[in-house]
């Protein structure tokens, strides 16, 4: 993992993923470690994503490193027409590692090929966001004590959701039962279902919550976006069907946790926030430990 870019969750083997989780656990116990003294990390955000950027910057700061970069492309030379390649080749001279977010799919893989320092993908369009997947795995393992024999319910936009697809791929390395809940228009794409079939993993699909929640170990909620619907009336009709409310959690397992990659809009009712079963804010905190682990593994500061 030393000096290796992290672009797609598929770049890490199962063992490498577990190594990240193990190290993240150590960072959770002891988050302030002066490992990055004198090191510079670039955060290049060609499109804004405040949450992800702050999480990375917090991770670097807690390890004593410095951050340089930009928060959206209007404050960089991209507006002058500079190519991605030129931006990356230049910034690679200034830093030990590049964290980048870019709206164009495949941009991070390309950047890793032209950069002479490792690149961490913090989201390339609808394609990949591997550190999100690793923090999701971390949150699941931390709350359930394992990644095997779990009932994982995925809710909302299962068709376009990058987070959902990457998490599914990562969890398919473990023995997990999947339950997919989505409107007809936003069903899990066939290529992922085929992947699960090939791996011999059970999954179940339906368009509402009926009969599923009480056995769940994890409910992973995502946003159903209006622009995904060709018919706005259809959106109005379906949007309320995928809202999780506190009274629906009454008979769920004590250990069950509700996860959400955030930002949330209305799909997780705020009355859940006070429940022990709400985990999304802690999930965001776990992102800092996970990113500390990833950065220190790539820079060879931890084994």
């Amino acid at each position, binding site marked *: 993992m030393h000096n290796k870019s992290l672009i797609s969750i598929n770049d890490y083997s199962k063992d490498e993923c577990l190594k990240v989780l193990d190290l993240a656990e150590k960072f959770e116990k002891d988050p302030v470690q002066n490992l990055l003294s004198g090191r510079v990390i670039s955060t290049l955000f060609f499109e804004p994503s405040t949450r992800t950027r702050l999480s990375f910057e917090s991770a670097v700061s807690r390890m004593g490193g410095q951050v340089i970069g930009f928060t959206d492309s209007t404050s960089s030379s991209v507006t002058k027409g500079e190519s991605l390649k030129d931006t990356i080749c230049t910034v690679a001279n200034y830093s030990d590692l590049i964290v980048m977010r870019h709206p164009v*799919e*495949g*941009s991070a*893989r390309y950047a890793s090929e032209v950069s002479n320092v490792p690149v961490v993908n913090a989201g390339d369009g609808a394609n990949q966001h591997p550190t999100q997947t690793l923090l999701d795995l971390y949150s699941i393992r931390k709350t359930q004590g394992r990644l095997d024999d779990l009932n994982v319910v995925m809710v909302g936009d299962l068709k376009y959701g990058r987070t959902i697809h990457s998490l599914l791929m990562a969890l398919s390395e473990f023995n997990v039962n999947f339950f997919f809940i989505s409107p007809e228009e936003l069903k899990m794409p066939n290529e992922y279902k085929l992947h699960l079939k090939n791996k011999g993993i059970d999954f179940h699909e339906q368009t509402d919550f009926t009969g599923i929640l009480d056995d769940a170990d994890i409910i992973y909620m995502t946003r159903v976006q209006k622009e995904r619907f060709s018919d706005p009336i259809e959106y109005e009709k379906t949007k309320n069907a995928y809202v999780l409310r506190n009274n629906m959690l009454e008979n769920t397992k004590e250990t069950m946790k509700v996860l959400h990659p955030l930002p949330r809009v209305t799909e997780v009712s705020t009355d859940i926030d006070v429940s022990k079963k709400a985990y999304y804010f802690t999930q965001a905190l776990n992102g800092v430990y996970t990113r500390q682990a990833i950065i220190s593994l790539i820079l060879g500061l931890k084994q």
Partner: protein
Amino acid sequence: MIKDQKTLKVSAIKTGTVIDHIPANNLFKVITILGLDNIKKPITFGTNLESGKLGYKGIIKISDKFFVNEEINRIAMAAPQAQLNIIKDYKVVEKKVVQVPEMIEGIVRCVNPKCITNAEEVKQKFIVTNDGEVSLKCHYCEKITDQEHMAFI
């Protein structure tokens, strides 16, 4: 007489390569992929010829030109069933079939309009998957370009 005219259209060559069983609608793609539009050798071709295998096929004959396997395999996307006859002294001395490579660079455009290869000057690169039908997984954006949507450069 008519038969003679037919053979004249794509006449035999003394030395070189005959590429047969090209789907008629992909003939010009094969010519482009192999860079035949830029070589200074005599080339004859025919298209929309009746074929038992393909319905209508194209055929190309290139004098004094031989291809290495790597070059030939580049046409796998456009003409997976193509067959190459190596001709010496008007005789077929060797037959070759196209093999689908594991990876291709260039040749095909990624179907995803949001892919970096369609946004900047980045050479296309695909991992070839072949479970019955050949499809291409983009090395960059990871999206699949299937046969139906393959646009040749």
